[in-house]
């Protein structure tokens, strides 16, 4: 990364960090929600954008993380332990979901993962003794860290922000390592990759498992943020929305999920005036974007650079 880019990144991070002082409580809630979804979409970008797999089941992992948090936090378990348990649980389930990907690809895989999401959704709705069914689980406590309560909206925002940055930094490091190259090789040409000794079985499973773990972590923060969960936010339509965020932002580009997640979290708010037309307008915007910018929003600088070079 060049020095100017690093500088721009630092400015953006600080600017984002002072935003809470200019926002009312709902704005702050949206800002925190944005960080929460970012953890999930960064994970999905690894699975889909870097490793070239297809997943329409990401919201299920987000939900598994959230329900783990809801149940265990109410039992008074420490937050970091709950976080670790949720991440490991999602990692393991993610590994299992990776197995269909070893046999089928593209739209078949889309349906396999979608089926998984539907299954998890039904379990959340029907296993009332554990999940509270459609009534959900309420009064989920916010964590405290080293005796310092994170109950307030501002402390919880900074806690979530720092966690998101940590997760993103870990992913950056992972994708820069030879693993990142192996994931990309798997995406670009699995047959060639295997003939070069790249263990495509292991990398495919890991791509799902790591992506799932990120979603699970996001889910834990989600539960702590909203304080009340029920199955709706983990419906497969949310998997589609997350996939949309990855694609609109620029799949396989490191900062793609940032732009994509802004779109899925904020656009619905801005379009609220459109009322019933909201979905139609949203859909139209997405189609228009995909036609004009197939590389996603984060490909805009490249496009300008190419124009300038001509």
């Amino acid at each position, binding site marked *: 990364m060049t020095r100017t880019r690093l500088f721009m990144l630092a400015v953006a991070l600080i600017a984002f960090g002072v935003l809470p002082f200019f926002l009312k409580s709902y704005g702050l809630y949206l800002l925190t929600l944005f960080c929460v979804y970012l953890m999930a979409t960064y994970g999905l970008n690894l699975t889909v954008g870097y490793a070239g797999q297809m997943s329409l089941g990401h919201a299920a992992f987000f939900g598994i993380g959230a329900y783990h948090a809801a149940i265990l936090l109410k039992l008074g378990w420490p937050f970091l332990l709950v976080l670790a348990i949720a991440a490991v649980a999602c990692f393991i389930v993610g590994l299992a979901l990776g197995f269909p990907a070893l046999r089928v690809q593209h739209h078949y895989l889309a349906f396999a993962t979608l089926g998984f999401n539907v299954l998890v959704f039904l379990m959340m709705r029907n296993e009332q003794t554990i999940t509270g069914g459609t009534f959900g689980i309420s009064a989920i406590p916010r964590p405290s860290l080293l005796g310092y309560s994170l109950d307030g909206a501002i402390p919880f925002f900074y806690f979530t922000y720092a966690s998101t940055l940590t997760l993103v930094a870990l992913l950056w490091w*992972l994708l*820069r*390592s*030879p*693993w*990142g*190259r*192996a994931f*990309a*090789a798997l*995406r*670009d*040409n699995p*047959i*060639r*990759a*295997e*003939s*070069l*000794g*790249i*263990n*495509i079985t*292991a990398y495919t499973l890991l791509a799902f498992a790591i992506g799932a773990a990120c979603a699970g972590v996001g889910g834990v923060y989600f539960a702590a943020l909203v304080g009340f969960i029920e199955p709706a936010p983990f419906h497969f339509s949310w998997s589609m929305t997350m996939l949309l965020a990855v694609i609109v932002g620029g799949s*396989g580009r490191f900062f793609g999920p940032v732009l994509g997640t802004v779109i899925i979290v904020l656009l619905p708010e801005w379009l609220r005036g459109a009322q019933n037309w909201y979905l139609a307008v949203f859909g139209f915007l997405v189609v228009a974007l995909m036609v004009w910018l197939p590389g996603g929003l984060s490909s805009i600088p490249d496009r300008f650079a190419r124009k300038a070079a001509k």
Partner: protein
Amino acid sequence: MTLRPSFLDVIDVRKHYGAIKAVDGVSLSVRPGEIVGVIGPNGSGKTTLFNTILGQIKPTGGTVEFCGEDITGMSPLELARRGVGRTFQTLQVFGRLSVRDNLIAAAQESKGTMPGRLFARPDAGLRHRSDEMLGLFRLEHVASLPAGSLSYGQQKLIDIAMAFMPAPRLVLLDEPCAGVNPSLVDELLDLLLALNRTQGGSFVVIEHNMDFIMKLCPHVLCMVEGRVLAEGPPAALQANPQVLEAYLGN
């Protein structure tokens, strides 16, 4: 000449698709440092033979041995780990990765363990080796461009360079000259000869370009309808009336 024992032995390999006998009892052996050519008309089973040797498809019968070990039906992954590399008849590069990353990706998995590579340097310690190959294949000036954005000939070179990145003991090349312009063909010939000399690699090369085969391979097999019609030095094959009739024409 037969002092060194062969290290690839293909014994009576067959691959049948129902009634189609794509490969029907082929035997060949390659000694260390040797370059063997395979010629034959379209559809004579050359690529299928490669794919059965390389674990891409399971043979109907026969055995393949590498360094005395039975490798019949082993997966491409296990073969890569044993130092067997290949190129495919069609272009196979990692389109969105840079040329340098293509080369590093080709060799990184033979270094260390998988968990170890998570903590390894981003270039997996292969910067120098990739520089060397970039220089050899004259790809330095495009090293940081995405492989998919280059010309067909350049991608073909990347493809071949990738096969040689991990310094394999045996490389199977499926039509390396196809779609490559004549001046590049001569360069490729020199490159392969140099690699054979300096790194002691053994190759099996499928090629329709007879001139190339003549200059590269001391030993050539001619396949027709899934069988070896004739084998020997290329000059002898060119004079063989059966080969002339089935493949080379007048």
